[in-house]
């Protein structure tokens, strides 16, 4: 049986692997696993401890969901459409070495090794709500840094009105990509002001450790006031665009999933209500909870959308 994670243990600085070393080790491990010398373990897998600071001002006071729930109940169709597929089928996925391509309307473009891209950024822990469009939710202690800080370094030009993201395309390691459930690779995008917002996070870990494959290793987006599908995983490309970029779910079902995808109990999905949600981990006898406008982040983000008809721009 899996051990319950010890949330309260804070590793000593001497115990923590610097990110660059961790990424190099993962490279070696991945090589060993690929060569068959080491069995890939996903059932008991944990990430590598990260060095980070807590950010209580940007965190919820609610208690987080368990590590087990967060890492075994996932929508990541690149690994299969069942909730348990990502944790079961992502063993072959190698998140290191990792390159991120920056392109489009920016002064700083090119291919970057992940460790170089994120080295200047101090990691923080942010405890955020995540609300899936399917009407379930979790509280997750992410570790990452504000996307806005990264964007400032990349110096987007005045023509950059949007930021577009792309997930890696690797059908050999991501079995779900062999089926056209969605158009692969997965793409997402944000308006520039949404991307620059202090809440928007580039996440590299959760629960103080690097992301497991099923949670979008090694780099993913977290936009807590939007439905979870906006949180694109395993990012390989960041592109600054003048026009609104295509997003995968909107492409798949434009009458059901919009570009904005702001959590809104007053705007239902065409086929089911968005007024309530089920908090994961509550068990068989926990009632549903009312969904909050902007997933409870209205005070911080509602002003971004003043004047916008949220029913039409879902």
């Amino acid at each position: 049986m899996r051990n319950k994670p010890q949330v309260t243990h804070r590793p000593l600085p001497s115990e923590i692997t610097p990110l660059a070393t961790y990424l190099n080790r993962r490279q070696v491990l991945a090589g060993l696993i690929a060569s068959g010398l080491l069995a890939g373990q996903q059932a008991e897998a944990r990430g590598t401890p990260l060095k980070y600071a807590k950010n209580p001002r940007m965190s919820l006071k609610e208690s987080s969901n368990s590590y087990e729930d967060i890492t075994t109940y996932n929508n990541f169709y690149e690994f299969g459409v069942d909730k348990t597929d990502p944790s079961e089928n992502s063993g072959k996925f190698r998140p290191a070495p990792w390159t991120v391509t920056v392109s489009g309307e920016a002064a700083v473009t090119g291919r970057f090794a992940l460790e170089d891209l994120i080295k200047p950024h101090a990691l923080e822990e942010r405890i955020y709500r995540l609300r899936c469009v399917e009407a379930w939710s979790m509280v997750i202690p992410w570790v990452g840094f504000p996307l806005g800080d990264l964007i400032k370094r990349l110096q987007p030009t005045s023509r950059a009105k949007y930021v577009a993201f792309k997930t890696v395309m690797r059908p050999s390691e991501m079995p779900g990509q062999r089926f056209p459930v969605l158009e692969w690779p997965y793409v997402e995008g944000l308006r520039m002001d949404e991307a620059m917002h202090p809440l928007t996070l580039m996440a590299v870990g959760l629960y103080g450790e690097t992301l497991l494959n099923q949670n979008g290793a090694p780099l993913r987006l977290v936009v807590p006031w939007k439905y979870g599908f906006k949180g694109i995983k395993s990012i390989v490309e960041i592109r600054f665009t003048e026009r609104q970029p295509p997003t995968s779910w909107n492409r798949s079902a434009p009458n059901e999933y919009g570009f904005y995808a702001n959590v809104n109990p007053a705007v239902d999905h065409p086929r089911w209500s968005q007024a309530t949600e089920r908090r994961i981990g509550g068990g068989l006898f926990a009632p549903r909870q009312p969904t909050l406008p902007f997933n409870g982040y209205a005070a911080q983000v509602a002003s971004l959308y003043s004047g916008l008809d949220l029913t039409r721009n879902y």
Partner: protein
Amino acid sequence: MPRYAKPALFVLCCLPLLWLTLRAIGVGPLQLGPNPVATLIHALGSWGFRLLLLTLCVSPAAVIWRKPALLKLRRLLGLFSFTYLTLHFLTWLILDQWLSWSAIARDIIKRPYITVGLAALLMLVPLAVTSTDRWLRRLGRRWHRLHSLIYPAAILGAIHFWWQVKADWREPLLCALILASLLAWRVAYRHRQTRANRQRTPSH
């Protein structure tokens, strides 16, 4: 048909329910997962619909394999299907909606997939009630006409299954295809029977 056939089938039909109960209680490694209510509702509906399809397989099987004795199993399968589907509905009503009648009424009216699902279940109620031999005798020919309600019920059930899909359309698609085949077989069979009857009776 061997005498143990019905009891054996009875036990088999109970197994999914037993397995779900063990998972709900959390016996050993068995569990319903992080979203137990959704998992339970889905599993009960899924098994209920599979049993409904199995019920619809009985008549074609009896004809094709020339084993009219198989028809004795139809009621058992039908009632188990009804049981699973009722539990599916009750789980939604109690564990998901917590008997919040205004929310439930709103869902039934505003969510087409729920409207259709409830309609399908309601159609099965008179079928379950009149499933006994006494009712069969009482209603005679009308019993068969009443029980043809299973066809619209199954079709609405398939639509309900399809409309609640988030992304995994594999099972609803498979069920729809199987249902379509079973209905098509019946249409073809009726057509053959009518033609055979017309040939036997010379036209006046």
